């Protein structure tokens, strides 16, 4: 007599998903497809532009070649200015981010109200793009690198403070209690118990943000906030495509160099 093993027979064919799982997957796919169709149809895309886009691109490439290298000496100063904007902006952000981080970390903020203020400042700083901050500061300080520095600082302070606040919240209680036990005041506890613990995060994040900022500074000139962007924009508006290529190559070099430098520094401190 054949004895049946178990109550259920195993399915003969292997399936990756149960029917319920695949139904959910199909539902999600349909939702995404529907949203995509809605997005694309509502954007009023002029498909005719796609027809000759490749010809336009080839045309543009031909106009860019050969690069006018004689333009290079003229853009050395704005290139240096671009890096200065990034560095000074990051430096200001670094100074401002420390108090903001202590304000918006749950374990160091004074009360719920100050925490909410800190968090609101973080969100506001981070949600507005550097270029839009540039627009605001150009309206205040007029065109020039000062507006750019302020824009970089305004965007970076939220980024740095958020990372720092997270590090403060995860700080080890031991050293903090030890400092408290010596009778230290709040400021001393923060300075000697918390800050040394989060220092590696602070430096690493700052260096990382600096190299992002070099990239951001390269376009601040579009809104008049100083740096190489102004020259790029001017060259494009004059249809001086051979100059555009030189500027793009120069931007490529400084961005890649700053990225390499930042990666090297971060590898050394961690």
């Amino acid at each position, binding site marked *: 007599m054949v004895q049946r093993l178990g109550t259920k027979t195993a399915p003969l064919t292997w399936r990756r998903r149960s029917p319920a799982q695949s139904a959910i997957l199909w539902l999600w796919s349909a939702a995404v497809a529907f949203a995509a169709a809605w997005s694309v149809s509502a*954007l009023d895309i*002029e498909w005719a532009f796609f027809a000759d886009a490749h010809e336009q691109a080839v045309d543009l490439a031909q106009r860019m070649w050969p690069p006018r290298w004689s333009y290079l000496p003229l853009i050395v100063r704005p290139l240096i*200015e671009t890096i200065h904007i990034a560095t000074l902006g990051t430096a200001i952000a670094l100074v401002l981010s420390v108090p903001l981080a202590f304000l918006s970390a749950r374990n160091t903020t004074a009360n719920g109200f100050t925490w909410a203020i800190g968090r609101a400042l973080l969100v506001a700083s981070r949600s*507005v793009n550097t*270029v839009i901050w540039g627009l*605001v500061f150009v309206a205040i*300080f007029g065109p020039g690198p000062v507006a750019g520095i302020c824009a970089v600082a305004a965007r970076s302070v939220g980024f740095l403070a958020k990372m720092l606040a997270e590090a403060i919240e995860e700080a080890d209680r031991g050293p903090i209690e030890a400092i408290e036990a010596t009778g230290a005041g709040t400021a001393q506890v923060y300075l000697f118990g918390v800050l040394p613990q989060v220092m590696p995060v602070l430096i690493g994040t700052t260096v990382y943000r600096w190299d992002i900022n070099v990239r951001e500074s390269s376009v601040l000139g579009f809104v008049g906030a100083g740096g190489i962007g102004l020259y790029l924009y001017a060259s494009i508006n004059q249809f001086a495509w051979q100059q555009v290529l030189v500027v793009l190559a120069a931007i490529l070099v400084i961005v890649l160099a700053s990225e390499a430098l930042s990666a090297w520094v971060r590898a050394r401190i961690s």
Partner: protein
Amino acid sequence: MHPTPSPATVWRRPPLFGSLWRQRLAVAAVAGYLVWSTSTLEVNLERVLAGFPRALDMFARMVPPDFSRWQLLMNGMVESVQMAFAASLAGVLLSIPLGIAAARNLAPGPLYLAARGFIVLGRTLHEVIIAIFFVKLFGFGPVAGLLTLAFASAIFLGKMIAEDIENVRPGPVEAVRATGAGFGQVVVYSIVPQVLARAVGLAIYRLDANLRHSTVVGIVGAGGIGQTLSASFARYEYDFSLAILLSIIALVALGEWFSDWVRRRLR
């Protein structure tokens, strides 16, 4: 018995950069840089000082924010959201072949180098610069913005996917290959299951990033709320600008919260 050195009676903060000399050198270098950079910047001090009363004046004109033209505002916001969404999807689709081509363990040498070169080039240039070129090719409007964000997303996701593919465990790949599977089958049955969870998380993150970037490509005429904002600044309608800025902050915060929520659930 060894004489133990008497401990210092005064505590000194341990230097940050290894030795005291290195720390002094670092501080001096930073100070020197700050002096050099501030002296070479062409700062019009009068203009900057005039900025502080101007800032107060501007602030006074910004408050209260003017939401009366909410329809214009809504149109810009919806356009940004649509741009971001369509661009994320297009970016995901484009990033799959790019990611495979840029994975050392899947792609042949020359293709790998070409794909990596393309990624480095694309990552370096800021979205706004890419947007200018798409505006030149496709005219003003959201199409240029959509293509810019799709391009940037494909590059970002392609890089991440390539790195994930390079880090897959070789066991399942060999097992599937041993069954006689072709290239496509190896990818679908051994690589995709290993990288899918993280890739979905990254795609959601990118949606959030695109939402952020969609607010800025409008500065060069590539559609979205950025174009509305730029126009309001050009017309000195600062109260409308503030309304737009507040809306952008709300949208971005919402997008970030959504992206965090989804990624937490995926884990």
